[in-house]
């Protein structure tokens, strides 16, 4: 056969066996280690467990324990994500390491192989370091299970497919990164950074916006959903978590793993395209692809600007947001010149100052635009007719039962109008609020001294989420908004608007979440906490036998009459102290499992509501049930405070306190 005929064969081939064999054998420690790791974790551990259990279990128990152990194999995928991420990188570094030194790159590219053949052979060799060990471990584990009489292929198949998908993605991603660099040490950096770049950068930009923009709290959830998808370790860890479905342990989102595996294939194709156009002389360069160099340079500048800026700003305890702009600019330029040094492999990079000018201009412009809110972000309050619903969180109020902390979703136009007033009032407080954020202690002292010397000052941390008629959403968040008791009657103030919202009984019903409990849960038990025992002179918990449902109905009746579940903006106000008890009524209930709950048919939780002296139906039933009597009292907060103050110590009765107790009208 002539050489032409023989060589044409290799010319059309996209795979070379000799190269594959050589690569596979050269890097045997990688796949041997990977095989050993999984062998230890799967078949060996199963076998060791079986041997351990054999001595201490009946055959039936042993079978059950083994079945249980086998069914839980997919749990290993939670570790598998990290393992795939690390091993994918290691394999990519190994098989494409020849690209990073001039000698090896020249030697490999002088071989009579097309680049496609070189790439595909090396790519498959690296992938085989991961997939072949998994197949071997799969077979070994199946054989072990069969030998132990607990063969269950489905959990094992789930593990094999999902781990294979994870490895395919992470390895391909690492190969993709490998094509952009000519330096071995740069590859893990690129890979690590790109895996979490979206998450880190979004967090940083969010933090900067939070500092610059009054009312900015976070990016909308669709942005974060996208960021999660661009942060593979995050989204895939979640996707391979285990949930219980139909009495079986299954992966939470196996489809997502498949999608990422497909993305891995796409990345490998992209990597091949880059490889085809790659210049071999780029070996040793931090960035091997010319077109990507500006992206790298300005990307490093941006990352350095945001990270360094935020770090320095926090380190130097805040100062003004213009200071932050200065630090972002400084670190951005430092990052730019550092990137230039890496690209040019020289410290003499000041000649590249021309490229720094547009960077500085962009940073300054962006910072100023955010600082002076050229986009109208801060002042934007939607028109009432634009809002279809609003969710309000952080309407902090007393007492501290289940009525606090829950969000309110409002669709009633009147209630929406109140929220809009609340929003406008928060905007009116911008200047004071910024002072409070920059100097919380000083500002608080100022408020106490100047604004309301006789009343009380509390702070609200409001989050507003508007659903607008055009289908979009508007989100704002305000921290440490001061509310003062003297403003309660002043229409248009923050205090007034918040008070109005809290005085609406429908809103209160939503805050307490009765509907959820009644619709989905089963009441199990009830008890009172912090009941004052006049004999032991201590607060105690009193459990109530039976009558849970009756007690719930009595409480609901009181709630409907507005005698329980009343919220107070000011914790220490006279009204609050006199009209709420120190005693809380608790209901235990069983709730259905949440999505993602593993092996749980229901879970227990509890609901609490603070008793009031006016809750006649509830109190009557509690007395009827002998839960409250002469010795077991539900003291009002005022009484409890008097009791405590009168004793000069906690819970020690005094003459004054006894008088209060004796005068208690139940």
């Amino acid at each position, binding site marked *: 056969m002539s*050489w032409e005929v023989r*060589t044409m064969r290799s010319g059309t081939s996209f795979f070379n*066996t000799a190269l594959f064999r050589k690569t596979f054998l050269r890097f045997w420690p990688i796949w041997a280690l990977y095989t050993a790791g999984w062998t230890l974790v799967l078949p060996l551990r199963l076998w060791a467990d079986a041997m351990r259990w054999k001595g201490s279990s009946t055959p039936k128990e042993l079978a059950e324990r083994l079945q249980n152990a086998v069914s839980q194999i997919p749990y290993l995928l939670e570790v598998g994500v990290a393992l795939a991420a690390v091993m994918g990188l290691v394999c990519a570094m190994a098989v494409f390491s020849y690209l990073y030194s001039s000698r090896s790159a020249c030697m490999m*590219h*002088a071989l009579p192989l097309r680049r496609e053949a070189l790439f595909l052979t090396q790519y498959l060799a690296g992938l085989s370091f991961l997939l072949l060990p998994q197949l071997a471990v799969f077979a070994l584990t199946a054989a072990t299970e069969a030998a132990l009489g607990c063969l269950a292929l489905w959990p094992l198949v789930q593990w094999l497919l999902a781990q294979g998908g994870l490895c395919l993605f992470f390895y391909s991603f690492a190969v993709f990164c490998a094509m952009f660099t000519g330096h071995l040490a740069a590859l893990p950096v690129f890979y690590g950074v790109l895996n979490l770049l979206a998450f880190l950068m979004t967090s940083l930009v969010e933090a900067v916006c939070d500092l610059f923009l009054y009312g900015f709290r976070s990016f909308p959830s669709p942005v974060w959903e996208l960021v999660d998808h661009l942060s593979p370790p995050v989204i895939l860890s979640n996707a391979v978590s285990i949930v219980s479905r139909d009495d079986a342990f299954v992966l939470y989102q196996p489809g997502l793993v498949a999608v990422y595996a497909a993305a891995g294939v796409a990345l490998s194709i992209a990597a091949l395209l880059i490889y085809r156009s790659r210049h071999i002389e780029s070996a040793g360069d931090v960035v091997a692809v010319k077109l990507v160099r500006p992206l790298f340079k300005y990307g490093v500048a941006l990352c350095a600007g945001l990270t360094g800026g935020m770090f320095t700003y926090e380190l130097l305890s805040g100062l003004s947001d213009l200071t932050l702009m200065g630090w972002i600019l400084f670190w951005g330029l430092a990052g730019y010149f550092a990137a230039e040094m890496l690209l040019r492999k020289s410290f003499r990079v000041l000649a590249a100052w021309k490229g720094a000018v547009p960077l500085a201009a962009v940073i300054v412009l962006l910072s100023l635009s955010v600082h002076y809110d050229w986009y109208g972000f801060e002042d934007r309050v939607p028109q009432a007719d634009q809002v279809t619903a609003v969710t309000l969180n952080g309407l902090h109020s007393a007492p501290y039962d289940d009525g606090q902390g829950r969000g309110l979703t409002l669709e009633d136009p009147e209630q929406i109008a109140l929220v809009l007033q609340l929003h406008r009032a928060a905007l009116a407080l911008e200047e004071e609020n910024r002072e409070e954020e920059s100097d919380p202690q000083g500002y608080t002292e100022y408020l106490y001294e100047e604004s309301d010397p006789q009343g009380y000052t509390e702070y609200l941390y409001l989050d507003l989420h508007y659903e607008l008629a055009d289908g979009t959403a508007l989100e704002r968040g305000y921290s440490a908004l001061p509310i003062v008791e003297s403003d309660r009657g002043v229409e248009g103030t923050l205090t007034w608007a918040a008070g109005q919202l809290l005085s609406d009984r429908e809103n209160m019903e939503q805050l307490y979440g009765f509907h959820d409990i009644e619709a989905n849960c089963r009441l199990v038990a009830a008890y009172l906490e912090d009941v004052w025992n006049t004999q032991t002179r201590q607060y105690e918990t009193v459990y109530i036998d039976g009558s849970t449902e009756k007690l719930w109905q009595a409480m609901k009746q009181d709630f409907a009459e507005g005698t329980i579940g009343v919220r107070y903006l000011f914790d220490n106000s006279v009204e609050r102290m006199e009209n709420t008890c120190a005693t809380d009524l608790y209901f235990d209930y069983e709730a259905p499992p949440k999505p993602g709950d593993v092996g749980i048919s229901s879970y227990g939780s509890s609901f609490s509501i603070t008793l009031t002296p006016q809750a006649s139906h509830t109190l009557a039933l509690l007395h009827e049930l002998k839960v409250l009597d002469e010795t077991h009292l539900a003291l009002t907060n005022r009484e409890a405070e008097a009791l405590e103050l009168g004793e000069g110590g906690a819970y020690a009765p005094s003459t004054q306190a006894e008088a209060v107790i004796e005068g208690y009208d139940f």
Partner: protein
Amino acid sequence: MIQVNNVVKSFDGFRALDGLTMSVEGGSIYGLVGPNGAGKSTILRHITGIYRPDSGSVRVDGQPVYENPAVKSRMAWIPDELYYFLSASTRDMMKFYRGLYPQFDDKRYQTLKDAFPAVDEKQPIRRLSKGMQKQSAFWLALCCMPDILVLDEPVDGLDPVMRRQVWSLLMGDVAQRGTTVLVSSHNLRELEDVCDHVGILSHGKVLLERSLTDLQDNILKLQVVFPDGQLPQLPPDLNVLHVTQLGRVHTLIVRGEPAVIKSRVAVFSPMLMEALPLSLEEIFIYELGGEDYAVRDIVL
């Protein structure tokens, strides 16, 4: 035949090859010389299909080399800086190359074992001395039975005996199989012994490309002594490149037909006139002396 046409290659703005054109006849031994940084290794990497030219073309028998396994499988390359896989022995590399080069000859591998007795084929190549690594490289390259052998500073590190042996093997291949050898070296004396064609590179261009015989036939070193000890006024059309005087002896380097030059100088009735052959080194110095200082550097 290797044909390089107007190849341009830049590295980060530096033009390493600047419209380089050269041709290597099949079955010839072509010496590529030039100062450091002239572009010798760069053009060799283009010829072996490693680098892609920014413009221009590199062809072997009319076929482009880049991304052409059919052409590259006929070619073996020994770089100035050798690379072998970590812990790979000569035997391991033989097995590797055997799977890549269709013409690889196992019998020759065994035969050449005697030519390189110092090389332990089972020992990792990286543990061998520099000279032995070079021997291993020649051993493997010759077993690939290449039609074209590209050598970058090939005998650097070899002892004189082994140099002679390696050249002997190469010339044997040229004679028996018509192998084309393209060799870059700074050792002009050695090239003079083996090359039949020479190309001189400077600043990414081939300044001169000719057969060694043509070169030597076109320039003459003439030692003359005139009766009064003074050099007479020579005709202006006589292309005198260089004149030196030692005592009464004048040495003239003159470009042109030797017989014509001798007859024209004889007109001045020198007491002594002797024509001496020029070494390759001297040819470079005098032929290209006014062309580029860097060319002089390589021979001084």
